[in-house]
């Protein structure tokens, strides 16, 4: 790489960072830089530290991040509309938000409906999440992240409940709407197809970090070997 090529500023940066929950250390000394404009797939077996890393990334750049956590964390008794709208609460005044809870305005309906349409949820817009299938609920969670309208997507297994084709289409579409992304996932083919860079984690250490164009499925398989 030539020295004169200017790189975008680092978006996330860790140097010898210790990450964990309370006393439990997940990453002992993490060195990692992710720049603006990169799309990164985080791979690794369960318990390798993907969720911990995502939470730490979010803490570094909270105002820039749209967040789609694994435990979906939707409000099940509210409609798809309100769960998606919730992503944008910070963008509107409190009074407007409370109004939307009781009786949304046509413009609020339209802006949320546009997001729902892209996710194939138009039919279910005013149905509560506890009456949806797992896949529909997962798409609602993605909708909430989209409606946040922030440039950096941080997502934890956002399409694990969807079939291969739908997952690929929705993930591609979602990535297009963000300029940077870090997404934890298990689907290795999807990681190679949709992301520029792949980071593989094992026991709290990045054991693999390379452009996806240089990797094969077989390279990724080694991450999951005991």
């Amino acid at each position, binding site marked *: 790489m030539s020295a004169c090529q200017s790189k975008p500023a680092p978006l996330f940066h860790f140097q010898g960072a210790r990450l964990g929950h309370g006393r439990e250390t997940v990453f002992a000394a993490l060195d990692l830089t992710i720049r603006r404009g990169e799309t990164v797939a985080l791979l690794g077996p369960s318990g390798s530290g993907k969720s911990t890393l995502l*939470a730490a990334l*979010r803490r570094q750049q*909270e105002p820039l*991040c749209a*967040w789609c*956590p694994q*435990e979906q*964390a939707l*409000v*099940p*008794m*509210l*409609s798809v509309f*309100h769960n998606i709208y*919730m992503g944008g*609460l*910070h963008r509107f005044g*409190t009074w407007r*938000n*409370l109004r939307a*809870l009781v*009786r*949304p305005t*046509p413009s609020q*309906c*339209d802006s949320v*409906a546009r997001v729902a349409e892209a996710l194939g949820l138009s039919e279910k817009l*005013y*149905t*509560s999440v*506890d*009456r949806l299938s797992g896949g529909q609920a997962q798409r609602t969670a993605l909708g909430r992240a989209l409606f*946040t309208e922030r440039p950096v997507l941080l997502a934890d297994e956002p399409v694990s409940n969807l079939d291969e084709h739908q997952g690929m289409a929705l993930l591609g579409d979602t990535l297009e709407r963000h300029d940077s992304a870090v997404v934890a996932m298990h689907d290795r083919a999807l990681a190679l197809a949709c992301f520029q860079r792949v980071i593989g984690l094992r026991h709290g250490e990045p054991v693999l970090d390379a452009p996806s164009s240089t990797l094969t499925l077989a390279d990724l398989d080694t991450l999951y070997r005991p």
Partner: protein
Amino acid sequence: MKRTTAFNTTAAGWRRASGWLGLAGLAAFACADLAVTRSNPGAELLRVGAGLLQPDFVATDGLGRALANTLAFAFQGVALGAAVGFLLALVWHRRAVRAGAASVRAIHELFWGLLLMQVTGLSTLTGVLAIALPYAGIFAKVFGEFLEEADPAPAGALADDRRRLSRFFYARLPLIWASCKAYTGYRLECALRASAILGFIGLPTLGFHLETAFREGHYGAGAALLYVLFLLILTLRLWLRPLLLPLYLLASLIWAPPLWQGSLETLVRFVTQDLVPAPLKSGGGLSELGLWLGNLWSEQIGPGVWHTLVLGLAALLLTALLALLLFPLRSPLFGNRASRALGHLILVVLRTTPEFFLAFFFLILLGPSMLPGILALGLHTGAIIAHLTARFSETLTLRADSARGINRYAFEVLPRLYPNFLAFLLYRWEIIMRETAVLGILGIHTLGFYIDSSVAEFRFDRTLVLILATVALNLGVDAFSRWLRGRLRLSTQGHPVP
């Protein structure tokens, strides 16, 4: 784009039910007599405030005796009630037991006190039985439900034989023991309040002196009595040790033995003559009885039931609003350490003060109308539900990017705990109705007012019919609340509602 906002959500069902209940509450407020008849409540409040700041602990003669009586009635009442209730819980599957338990607990301690006093006088026995009878019904229900909900597997895994008693002690009782113990502790707290309040009808407990002090405007002396009651209840967890229980019970039996002081003739006369409707006693037939009941209905039962319903519904609405407003004060999801400490204090004071005393206090301040009753029940029950709801909110985990403040309250927290809140509210409705009826003793025209007057006129036949009317009203409200809970599929998910 076509706009269809017909919400097909779980929340919409709760919203509809709440809307109807709220509308009923508003209608009740419209019908209720909310007049403030005292000319200068502000000045009186200042005097009460001064009294609360300067409690006078030596003004009341016999404070120690009243305190000991309060404790003794509560201990003996709970012990007897729990023992009887436990036995009834063993046969809880029988319909008659359920109906009987529901009826005895629908009659308030004070009404039991008024009735029993006619036979056993102003004695320990009256105080103990006034607590023990309704509590036996409550304990039977709660213990019975604990047994029903306990895991049947341990008992099923035992060898099938006829030793039912050993089966019970090995495979059933251990499963519910901890819950029963905790619930009995809570009931003792309630019994202390009830025992104190029994003083309002003349028994020698704290309430007797409390009423005198407040009625005569000795607010310093009244405040001291109130603080003694608070201290008793708030330190309960410190001195209530299972090992010391037999000692406490023995001491209370020695201090105030529940001896039968009346004569058998009094009891027989009371049951066979005083309680018999007047027209039957004077040899009249069914038509006279019908006329008598008709008059009683149009003059007392009808207005009493109506006022009780109106006050109860208005209090239910106020309870709901206060609970929704107050629970964030104590919830870890809102505010900071200081605001939570303050919220905790407010809720503890409101929960600990008996609603009957609160109503009495507001009556002195505002003068007679429904307003004191609505305020008292709303504040006390609102604080209880706020406390329960806040406790439930501790189990919620919100996502890291959850909104804050009012947005968090409206979008994340309220929808998640609304079913629990509504279940708490509907469970407490029965208790609100029970308390509403009894507020009549203070002069608010609910059923208790007519009950108290009939006792004062020695027309116990009327007393009996009026008390049966409160039972019917309570059972009706309870049945409606149960139907609504079932319809909305509400449950408190293992959180028992006190």
